Each structure stands twice: as structure tokens, then as C-alpha cells.
């Protein structure tokens, strides 16, 4: 995929060195650097992710037997997991493991809430089979 992985790798390594230099004097700005490079890498790969999502939707639309309407829920779950991961990583980088795990908990709860209709549908189908 072009040289995107090279770019991401280089940006990450440069940012880590800059953050390492600043960590002793100004830890908050070092955290800002790691956060900025995280945003940079994620924004860089988003167009590719969009293409992957498009492929996924095309595949789901071709599946017969119903259930393809739930692909939207799966996409939502991936989005929630992504944002939660980003937030919790920033907190973990700053050494705040407690806040990081709370963000992860929030992500898990929200994923449960989003995917509850699918679980209910699955249960209904299983009960109808029995």
C-alpha cells in the first residue's frame, strides 16, 4: 500500500524520540507530541479504512438469508472500539492506567448496548428453531 506504512513508521519513531527528549522537562508536552502523532497516523490511514468498509458493505449486501442489515451495527462497534482504544492509549501513555481502564469500560458497555438488538434477534431465531 504505497508508502503509507513507511510514513506511519517514520512519523512514530520521530515522535517517540522527540517525546523522549522532552519527557524529563515538560512531560505534558511530550504527551501532546505522542497524541498528535497518533492523530496524524490515524488520519493518514482513514481513507484506506473507508475503502475496506466499502468492500465489507458490498460483501454483506451480497449475502443471502437475511441479517445483512446488521453490518451497520458491526461498523459502529468497530468505530466505538477504535475511539475507545485511542483515548485509553493516550491515558495509558500518561501513566493514568485507572482512567484508561474506565474509558475501555465505557467502550465495552456502549458496544454491548449497540449490539443488544443482534443478540435478541439471534435468541429469537434459536428459540424459533427449537
Amino acid at each position, binding site marked *: 500500500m504505497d508508502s503509507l506504512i513507511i510514513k506511519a513508521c517514520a512519523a512514530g519513531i520521530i515522535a517517540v524520540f522527540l517525546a523522549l527528549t522532552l519527557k524529563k*522537562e515538560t512531560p505534558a508536552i511530550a504527551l501532546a*507530541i505522542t497524541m498528535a502523532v497518533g492523530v496524524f497516523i490515524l*488520519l493518514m490511514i482513514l481513507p484506506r*479504512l473507508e475503502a475496506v468498509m466499502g468492500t465489507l458493505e458490498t460483501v454483506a449486501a451480497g449475502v443471502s438469508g437475511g441479517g445483512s442489515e446488521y453490518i451497520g451495527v458491526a461498523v459502529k462497534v468497530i468505530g466505538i472500539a477504535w475511539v475507545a482504544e485511542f483515548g485509553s492509549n493516550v491515558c495509558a501513555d500518561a501513566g493514568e492506567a485507572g482512567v484508561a481502564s474506565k474509558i475501555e469500560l465505557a467502550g465495552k458497555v456502549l458496544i454491548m448496548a449497540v449490539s443488544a438488538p443482534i443478540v435478541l434477534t439471534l435468541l429469537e431465531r434459536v428459540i424459533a428453531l427449537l
Partner: protein
Amino acid sequence: MTIQVVFQIAAVGILVAVLNQVLRAAGREEQAVLTTLAGLIVVLFWVIQHVSSLFTTVQELFNL
């Protein structure tokens, strides 16, 4: 967003670190603290704009 932002933040960080040491050596602790705070606010101002744009894009992409 480009990688320039990261370098910009690093530049501010180095500037703040040097100013901090100079002011502390000159015995002006208060101004050292204020410099750190000002640098942090400037950097956060830049970073938050990009984080916001990332979240908006993700929100649109995943229909959150």
C-alpha cells in the same frame, strides 16, 4: 494534518524547557511555572483541533 504539527509542538516544548531552566536558574520560579503553563495551553490548542477533526471523521465514517 501534516507531520509539521508534531515538529511545531516539539519546538514549543524545547523552547519551554530551555526557558524553564533559565528562569529557574535566575531564581524566578513563578515565571518558570507560568511559561510551562503557557506552552502547554498553546500546544493543547493545536492538538485539540486535530483530535476534533479526527473524531468528526471517525463519527462520519462509522455512523456513530
